């Protein structure tokens, strides 16, 4: 028997699926269990991660690729990224992520075309800090709140990957307290 636990989107309930072979003559005829529900399915493979399911006569083509603990699945008209839940990892991962208001990161990979601030500058909320360009689209990265530039981690002309920290910010209160 095979078993996997998937989560359809962040925060969703994990779903456990079990596959059990049902037909000695067909290597890939399964009884699939999800909670109390059972479903008889047959699988034909056309390549690694690709093929189709036959579910009560219905044909469901699929393609899937896995990167890390995400499995990206295509079925006709739909593409979903599912999280593969590892029980041990689930237990270990207790600490939450910080909602980062202390930085501005690159929302996409691209080139920095303008830097409006220097270290130590103060700025109002929504002030345009950095301008970058990706695939010919210009984008203004604005301040999430009023504050002061603690650190500048990019320069004009630089190519940055998605998620890179471009500037680190200090809130205005902190600035006042420090000066």
């Amino acid at each position: 028997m095979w078993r996997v636990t998937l989560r359809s989107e962040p925060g969703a309930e994990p779903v456990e699926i079990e596959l059990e072979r049902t037909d000695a003559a067909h290597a890939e005829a399964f009884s699939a269990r999800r909670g109390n529900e059972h479903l008889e399915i047959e699988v034909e493979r056309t390549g690694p991660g690709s093929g189709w399911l036959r579910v009560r006569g219905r044909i469901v083509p699929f393609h899937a690729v896995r990167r890390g603990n995400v499995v990206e699945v295509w079925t006709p008209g739909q593409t979903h990224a599912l999280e593969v839940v590892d029980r041990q990892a689930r237990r270990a991962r207790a600490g939450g992520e910080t909602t980062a208001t202390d930085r501005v990161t690159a929302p996409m990979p691209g080139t920095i075309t303008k830097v409006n601030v220097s270290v130590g500058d103060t700025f109002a909320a929504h002030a345009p800090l950095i301008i970058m360009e990706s695939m010919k689209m210009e984008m203004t990265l604005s301040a999430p709140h009023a504050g002061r530039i603690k650190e500048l981690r990019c320069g004009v002309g630089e190519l940055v990957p998605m998620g890179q920290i471009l500037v680190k910010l200090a809130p205005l209160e902190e600035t006042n307290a420090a000066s």
Partner: protein
Amino acid sequence: MFNKILIANRGEIAVRIARTLQPMGICAVAVYSDADRAAVHVGSSDEAYPLEGNSAADTYLRGDKIIDIAKRCGADAIHPGYGFLAENPTFAQACKDAGFVFIGPKPEVMRRTGNKVEAKRTLSAAGVPVVPGWSGGSNEPAARFANEAKRIGFPVLIKAAAGGGGKGMRVVEREAELIPSIEAARREAAAAFGDGQVFLEKYVARPRHVEFQIFGDEHGNVVHLFERECSLQRRHQKIIEEAPSPALTPELRQRMGEAALRVARAVGYTNAGTVEFLVDASSEFYFLEVNTRLQVEHPITEMTLQQDLVRTQVLVADGQRLPFSQEELRPRGHAIECRICAEDADRNFMPATGTIERYVPPMGPNVRVDSGVAEGSQVSVYYDSMLAKLICWGQTREEAIAQTIWALDRLVILGLKTNIAYLRSLLTDAAVLRGEMHTQYVAQRSASTIAGASGDSARVGDDVLMAAAVAMKDGAGRSGVAPRSGEKATRDSGPWRAASAWRNT
């Protein structure tokens, strides 16, 4: 006739041009940046030479490198595709000076029409209706813009004089936004076209974008190849185009076609071009601009007329007469193009990058896919986010829409975010089904959609969960995916190896 043509472009259009040249017995020469060494357009060519470098400015915009390659490989002509150098009269002139035929209109025609300000003046004088607006010189003080904008009345549109494709274009609703917007538009225009000149135009509310394909030869013949409706746009870029336009009556089509021919004759147009019009709610139309190139959306014209526009470009560039007269051109049925882009519709269509892990284009009668990518392709930040174009044909608009939805549902792209589900949601939108679109429709609709624009918000059903489980089961027991170009995966590090969540009980 030419023996060898250099294609000064990349992606789907370079592939598509090669596909026309090869059956004509013409050697198709590709050029490529470092990032594109393993790109599909290189593998689809007969010869290929490196441009060295990665950014567009270092590679596909470097006319000098391209002309040098054309000399070394012995090409007769250069096809610029669209974008990059396609509407650059300096490059067209340089090609001519170096002894190569530039496949497009003459440099002087490109200059005449390429500056939108000048083009509007000329064509208005020739009796073509134009949108009211104002244009200063290149270094007009910003304050002057403010006065003119007030005169025209807000909202106004800022546009790049040398521009196209929405680059450098901005809508300004209030006076306070005008100056920063003009600065930004000038910056974008300078970066994209090497010319920062911008101008103002009356902002026409909820207009349709309807364009006419034109073609001229060197013997004075000019025809139009009917219209394309391109009103579905996001960030001022077309995403779905169709032919014919559901908004044109035969009478309006006739009048606009005549206006398009008047434009073509006024500027002495040769080779393929497009005359863009705005059509307002009361069916008044205004000249917008001339695109002196093959358009991205040319295949919908090809499908309704059963004409190969690239082939016609080559014949005309060779000095031959147009192979058809206006009377012989009879569109048949309805065609729709969807631009398949690497982007996240839920995050304001932000471009996505990455590796295409799986790519399966749909196949079938009346389905055409012009693709610039394949499995293993790297989608980088350097170039446009368009991966492929899906073009479907049907006897009627309804059939064409049904065929397009069928094909979108069967187009597989894994590895990065795409707009496939978003395109599908547009094609089931009630207003779109009624043919009631305008150029702001996509933006308005996104704003009013609550749960994300992507269309992928459908709940994850049993089929998807079963497919994921089955695929993972296979992955855990199998040898890993096929190694892809550029990716030197070893046998034990394949994406299917670490299926640790599975337990064999």
